[in-house]
């Protein structure tokens, strides 16, 4: 009987399970979220259409502006730091090193990538303690007065950024390193014969040829930072006030603490639109600065 199954049908059977999952858990809920965003729904009574009511509330909601500003700042700072430090570390490590040292370095930088954010944040929460924390203890040798890392509105978001960079720099470092090793030595040879200085070679050869990897790192990091939830919950719980609250945390609170499902869905729709726009922007921008050699 199997032999009678045509090639076409076999194709659909192979992708079937994935397709069903995709329709049931991605496409379906996305459409439902858009639908729910036009309703008032508190779980207890059935959803009630209220037109653009939720969207009118969004525009007037000062907390939404705050959480979007926090998220954008967090994403921008984390992307710039992880991507640029990744380049610095990759260039620094791309040389002949003793085998055991290389293994130790790779383990040290990459292992945090695998550790769950919630665990990493639980450890950092103690290190960041104002009076008893290890970070402030070592900073005081540099005459830095104690910093309230997690409880002051100036520093809370920066703490989240630092932990994000600490956890993820190993990933951008290794992707950049792999990109560096794909650049052929002949190009550097030719540049040297033409009399180019190492610094010139770095900015004219290394960086342009790394742009596909850089684009990848920027895309991955922005998608990840726009949905960061775990580290903020564990480190600051969004505080003080809303100083470090992200969009997805606000969405979660509205949906599962206030049971304001319609409003939460409207927030979800704005996030979806925001990410879609950002993706298009990155694709469009990448035509201008990414070189596929």
């Amino acid at each position, binding site marked *: 009987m199997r032999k009678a199954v045509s090639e076409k049908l076999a194709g659909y059977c192979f992708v079937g399970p994935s397709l069903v999952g995709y329709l049931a858990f991605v496409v379906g809920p996305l459409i439902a979220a858009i639908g729910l965003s036009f309703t008032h729904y508190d779980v207890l009574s059935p959803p009630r259409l209220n037109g653009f009511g939720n969207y009118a509330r969004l525009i007037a909601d000062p907390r939404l502006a705050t959480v979007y500003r926090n998220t954008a700042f967090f994403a921008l700072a984390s992307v710039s730091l992880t991507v640029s430090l990744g380049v610095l570390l990759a260039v620094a490590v791309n040389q002949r090193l003793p085998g055991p040292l290389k293994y130790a370095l790779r383990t040290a930088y990459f292992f945090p990538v695998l550790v*769950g954010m919630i665990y990493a944040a639980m450890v950092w929460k103690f290190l960041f303690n104002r009076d008893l924390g290890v970070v402030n203890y070592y900073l005081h040798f540099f005459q830095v007065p104690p910093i309230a890392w997690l409880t002051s509105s100036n520093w809370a978001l920066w703490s989240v950024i630092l932990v994000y960079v600490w956890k993820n720099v190993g990933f951008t470092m290794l992707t950049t390193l792999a990109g560096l090793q794909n650049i052929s030595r*002949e190009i550097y040879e030719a540049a040297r014969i033409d009399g180019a200085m190492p610094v010139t070679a770095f900015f004219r050869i290394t960086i342009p040829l790394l742009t596909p990897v850089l684009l990848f790192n920027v895309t991955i990091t922005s998608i990840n930072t726009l949905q960061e939830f775990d580290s903020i919950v564990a480190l600051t719980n969004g505080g003080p006030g809303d100083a470090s609250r992200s969009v997805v945390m606000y969405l979660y609170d509205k949906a599962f603490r206030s049971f304001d499902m319609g409003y939460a869905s409207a927030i979800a729709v704005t996030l979806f639109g925001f990410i879609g726009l950002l993706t298009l922007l990155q694709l469009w921008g990448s035509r201008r600065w990414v070189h596929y050699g």
Partner: protein
Amino acid sequence: MANHFAETAIEPRIESGNPFSGVRLSGVIGTVIVVAGSVPMVAPFLWMFTTSLTSGARAFDLPPNWFPKDWHFQNFLTLFQSNVPFATFLWNSFEVAGTVTLAQLLTCSMAGYAFAHVRFRGRNGLFALLLTSLMMPMQVTIVPLFLMMSSLGLVDTHWAIILPLATNAFGIFMMRQFFLTVPRELVEAARIDGATQFATFWRIALPLAKPALASLGIITFVNTWNSYFLPLVFLNSWEKMTLPLGMFALSNVYGGGNVSVIMAAVVLAICPLLVLFLVAQRYIISGMVGSAIKG
């Protein structure tokens, strides 16, 4: 492809013409930078490990203890003797992460194989469509997902977490990229010999895909093991909680009172990952980093 990549990632090529390895001084500076930078990478783990073996009273000593002094194993025993069912959390995490991993290995390799070697109408469009879900955070769909699971009566069961994670666009992409490296002739020869599509996949293609399956399996296991958001939304009884969720509850039960016990719990949660990483570093790195290069 994945295998070849692992080699290059692990062995930096020495380029005489590369200005950053040829010049000795920049080599020294580079070494200093990476070695100095590795200190803050490792220090939190060292503090965590030492604190887990220190009595709670001495956990906040300053200057901090970087090496255990009194080997206070009691913290680990406390975990299993307290009212918090720590062993249950561990088991639940293994169960959920293991099931999700097996499910993804099957669904992703089947779909990846079809996208690489089976011709059917709408193949490329479907593939592109699936990839768009990479851009979409779970939080966008969480409200309808919750309502759906709740109407199916699956809230506070592990199925609410396993089902949405049973397939994954990244995994499909990764497996497709691997199967594209399997020569077309090999697949067609098996078909001409009368093997069905499924037999070709199962007996010819899948055995070749072991390295890719290992990478995908480890990455999926680690991600599920660490996931906090889905369990937070769906699980609410102690008996069902996974480790990250239960740990957070644990840190609330003990408050700030006993840091050492909390750190002991983190050590136990991280240990399986460390073992996995030391054993299978090449599969993990080639799987995660390789996608950057081939993508």
